[in-house]
């Protein structure tokens, strides 16, 4: 009987530790920044609104498959003109790519760094034209043409 009680005691302690661990988990600062600075338009699942707001989910990683696409993601209005610091932009971009479009990332993908954001963070004069050019490149590489 004593052994039985001992086992119950051990199980209870293990349960308490599990519960505490689950409760202690919070969201990352990159995720919080996504909610506060991006989600209002791109939505919580990155779906966007066809014809109005570009989808991130299963799309955004494709831009890294073509030349200029990596810089483009730093220079789109929502990124370049956001109120986030360069360090926070790097975190949010990496979070978006990891969570919404990991399958589309090239095999040699390396995460964005703060220095890279600083180097390329200037808004594009004509974002629609640049985007069109990148999408045209994507269709010649055999990838499905994106993207509203």
């Amino acid at each position, binding site marked *: 009987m004593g052994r039985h009680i001992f086992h119950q005691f051990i199980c209870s302690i293990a349960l308490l530790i*599990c519960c505490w661990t689950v409760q202690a988990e*919070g*969201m990352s600062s990159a995720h919080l920044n996504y909610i*506060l600075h991006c989600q*209002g338009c791109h939505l919580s699942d990155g779906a966007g*609104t066809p014809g*109005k707001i570009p989808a991130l989910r299963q799309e955004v990683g494709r831009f890294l498959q073509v030349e200029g696409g990596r810089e483009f993601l730093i220079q789109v209005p929502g990124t370049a003109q956001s109120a986030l610091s360069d360090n926070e932009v790097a975190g949010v971009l990496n979070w978006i790519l990891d969570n919404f479009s990991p399958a589309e990332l090239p095999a040699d993908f390396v995460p964005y760094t703060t220095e890279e954001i600083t180097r390329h963070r200037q808004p594009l004069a004509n974002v629609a034209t640049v985007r069109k050019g990148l999408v045209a490149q994507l269709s010649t590489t055999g990838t499905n043409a994106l993207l509203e």
Partner: protein
Amino acid sequence: MKWLDKFSENSARSVARQSSRRSFIARIGTLMVGTAAVPLLPVARASNSSRPPAPGESGDPESCDYWRYCAIDGFLCDCCGGSYNTCPPGTTVSPVTWIGTCNNPLDGKDYIISYNDCCGKSSCGRCLCNTNKGDRPVYQPFLSNDINWCAGSTVDVAYNCSTAVVLGLAVAES
């Protein structure tokens, strides 16, 4: 009915033969402890954690001073046949939204608030609030709440009123 009496008696005697009062008490005790322990399981907590924590509510949700409205710009749905969480009948919630944070005076914590507009009917016209915490001029469009968010949605552009939905605690792990 005689067969029923006999059946009941036999069943009761059979149970009495096979179990002691002590074992009965032990089993009931185990059942009670087990039932009490189920809500503590991490699986149950994990499924709940996807839902935003319910903040304490105090004050008048039809007043601009209500804590959820710290950055609102528009008519309160609470005064228009809806609530701070729901659109009035006949309108559709815009998925595209203005998101900010407000401090809840009850627990002193910051919560993420989504000011989803309700669209498809003309302006409600009641309880206009313009509290604007964190709002920036329209030349900083990503931080301006003067935008009609119904324009970015799939529904009609007509704006009716604004909700103030809590998405969760504005706390990131360090």
